């Protein structure tokens, strides 16, 4: 069985290389609709003979777009409004051919849209809307008491809150909230209004009403495949066949299939393509029905990310500390630079890595490595500097060479505090590595990010609980190591009396 699988896989690889079909890498942003569209594109391309590597759930617009620019992915689902206003920085959303003339110098192409307009909308509870007599966004101006909780991206975007407030003269002071948590927050009565997408599958589940954009503020957000111009013509043709096939109610229904009816993205995509008669192969395909069947892989990836980054930080950070600790000036600048790296928000650091190292494992490792440096280098420098100077003087006076002093006196005396620094770095790493999912590096962040996108708390816990357990285990392992290698009276911080 196993053998047949492998043999057919090899056969497929040989076959595809013979006919010259290359592997396409397909991305998507982390939101639920983006993943679903990504899966639809992927299955359509596969149905037409392409091999598709999926890189779904990339952090945000900038992560997915940077990955496309750098060639790490060949295509991802995007919206006209986002393209025009956020990416190309245009003042309005022009027709597709004009967008494409802007994209041409970047070697990108926007293929014909799928049909539906997933514009931004303002959502609130149906019951509350009726009670207050609100149906249009302009009605909000008369209700300054309503609490707005808006997604972080919406608060920042040119075509988001700043413009909306100006157009409708809104007096509200919105809070930033993760979009995946916003509906729950409305349901729990902690906020009243949030930004929503017009085709959101959860709107029905939470009995939310979309307010009419009576001043036509929101631009059009027509969904389409944004591809690299080097994409084979056959692939472009294959994707163009999807044009105009999905209207707003259809998309909302597809989204609901995933968010409320527990279908997987792959199942929903499969069903759509079948209904459209776009799947030539008649056999029912099997999809895993289990909620999350990659936990083992995620755990392994998470361990790899954390350990490799930590190992690198030790291999580079400890010798660096030993090299510079004697010079006050140099060690200060080293600590200053490492501290500066620490202040860059993790998600921003990850995004900064993309133009340099693309997406996936490597940039995640580098970002985590940079985060580990400070605790390790700082602890090492401080612990070396705080070794009792009399002990150093005596070891020197006894005739030890610099190397012997390091080996026999300085390092053993500094070890307990150094170990604490490494432990701190390890635990920070385990937490930060959950964000690596944003740039397609996998790990326990994957179920967390997907869970947030699907409003599925269980799925979030699938990632969060193992990550927490891993952090606790790490703490224990370090404690054991300390007990094993450091004499009792040398443990703990600052107990090094001569």
């Amino acid at each position, binding site marked *: 069985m196993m053998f047949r699988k492998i043999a057919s896989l090899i056969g497929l690889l040989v076959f595809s290389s013979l006919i010259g079909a290359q592997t396409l890498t397909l991305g998507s942003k982390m939101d639920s609709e983006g993943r679903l569209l990504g899966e639809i594109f992927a299955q359509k391309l596969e149905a037409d003979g392409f091999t598709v590597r999926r890189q779904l759930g990339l952090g945000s617009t900038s992560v997915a777009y940077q990955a496309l620019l750098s060639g790490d992915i060949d295509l991802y689902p995007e919206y006209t409004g986002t393209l025009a206003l956020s990416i190309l920085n245009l003042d309005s959303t022009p027709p597709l051919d004009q967008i494409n003339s802007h994209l041409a110098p970047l070697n990108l192409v926007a293929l014909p849209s799928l049909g539906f307009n997933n514009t931004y909308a303002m959502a609130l509870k149906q019951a509350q809307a009726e009670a207050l007599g609100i149906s249009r966004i302009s009605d909000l101006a008369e209700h300054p008491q309503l609490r707005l909780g808006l997604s972080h991206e919406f608060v920042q975007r040119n075509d988001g809150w700043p413009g909306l407030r100006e157009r409708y003269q809104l007096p509200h002071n919105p809070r930033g909230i993760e979009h995946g948590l916003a509906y729950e927050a409305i349901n729990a009565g902690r906020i009243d209004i949030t930004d929503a997408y017009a085709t959101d599958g959860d709107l029905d589940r939470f009995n939310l009403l979309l307010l009419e954009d009576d001043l036509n503020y929101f631009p059009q957000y027509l969904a389409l495949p944004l591809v690299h111009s080097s994409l084979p013509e056959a692939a472009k043709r294959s994707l163009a066949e999807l044009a105009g096939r999905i209207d707003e109610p259809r998309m909302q229904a597809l989204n609901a299939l995933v968010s409320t009816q527990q279908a997987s993205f792959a199942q929903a995509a499969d069903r759509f393509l079948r209904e459209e008669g776009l799947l030539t192969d008649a056999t029912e395909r099997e999809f895993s029905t289990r909620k999350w069947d990659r936990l083992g892989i995620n755990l392994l990836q998470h361990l790899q990310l954390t350990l490799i980054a930590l190992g690198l930080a030790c291999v580079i950070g400890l010798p660096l500390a030993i090299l510079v600790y004697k010079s006050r000036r140099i060690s200060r600048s080293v600590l200053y630079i490492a501290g500066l790296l620490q202040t860059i928000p993790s998600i921003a650091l990850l995004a900064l890595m993309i133009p340099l190292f693309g997406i996936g494992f490597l940039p995640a490792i580098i970002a985590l490595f940079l985060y580990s440096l400070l605790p390790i280098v700082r602890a090492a420098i401080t612990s070396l500097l705080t070794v009792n100077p*009399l002990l150093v*003087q005596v*070891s020197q006076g*006894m*005739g030890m060479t610099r190397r*012997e002093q390091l080996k026999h006196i300085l390092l053993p005396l500094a070890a307990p505090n150094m170990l604490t620094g490494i432990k701190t770095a390890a635990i920070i790493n385990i937490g930060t590595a959950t964000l690596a999912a944003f740039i397609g590096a996998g790990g326990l962040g994957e179920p967390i990010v997907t869970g947030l996108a699907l409003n599925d708390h269980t799925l979030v816990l699938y990632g969060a609980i193992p990550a927490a357990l891993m952090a606790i285990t790490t703490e224990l392992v370090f404690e054991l190591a300390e007990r094993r290698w450091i004499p009792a009276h040398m443990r703990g911080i600052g107990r090094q009396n*001569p």
Partner: protein
Amino acid sequence: MTEHCVEFIQLEKGFANQRLFEGIDLALPVNAVTALVGASGCGKSTLLQLINGLARPDAGQVKVLGEPIDYQDLPRLRRKMGYAVQGIALFPHLNLFDNISLMARLEHWSQDAITQRIHKLFNFMYLDPALLTRYPHEISGGQAQRVGLCRAMMLDPPLLLLDEAFSAVDPITRVDVHARFQAMQAAEPRSVVLVTHDMQEAAKLADFMVVMDPGIVLQADTPEQIMNHPANAQVARLLEAR
């Protein structure tokens, strides 16, 4: 072998904003105990550190065991000198055996030679070999001082440098440690340079005394000569102030 273990020739040494020694000429006898005495700040500890290269002269020369100091290879020179300081500074992460034997192991002594030497030193110092597996924080102050001396004498160095190594214990313990030191010196006579602020200690232990005042040597002679014929009023005053 010369008759001097240490010679300072036209020695000049200062610190950032202050001259300390301006042309000192001084020779210390071989196989005898020399005490450097004087009030704090007179430069006696600096003079000691000029012997083992922890401090370097600005001008002039320091000869140790007949040779000018080779500052490119200080570890080799320092292994010919035992070194013990005030507070003893035993290494807290090593037990007594490892503290004492560290340099011998770095010199690739055989296990037998190490054990023999340590037992001989422990014998002189009235220390119980059962202590060898203990850590420094598990022994008394008096024991620690004697262990510090053992560590300094482990390699059987021709020259021993002691920087206030007998201070900071109670008077009774101190008398005890003095006695052990003298017994050791009788059995294995060597050149010792001892820094102390205690005139009594100097007079009791030393064969030769150097009385210092900031930057200058007031008198260098046997304790007897200095006690009976102080060179000037300053020396006399120092002898009285204990």
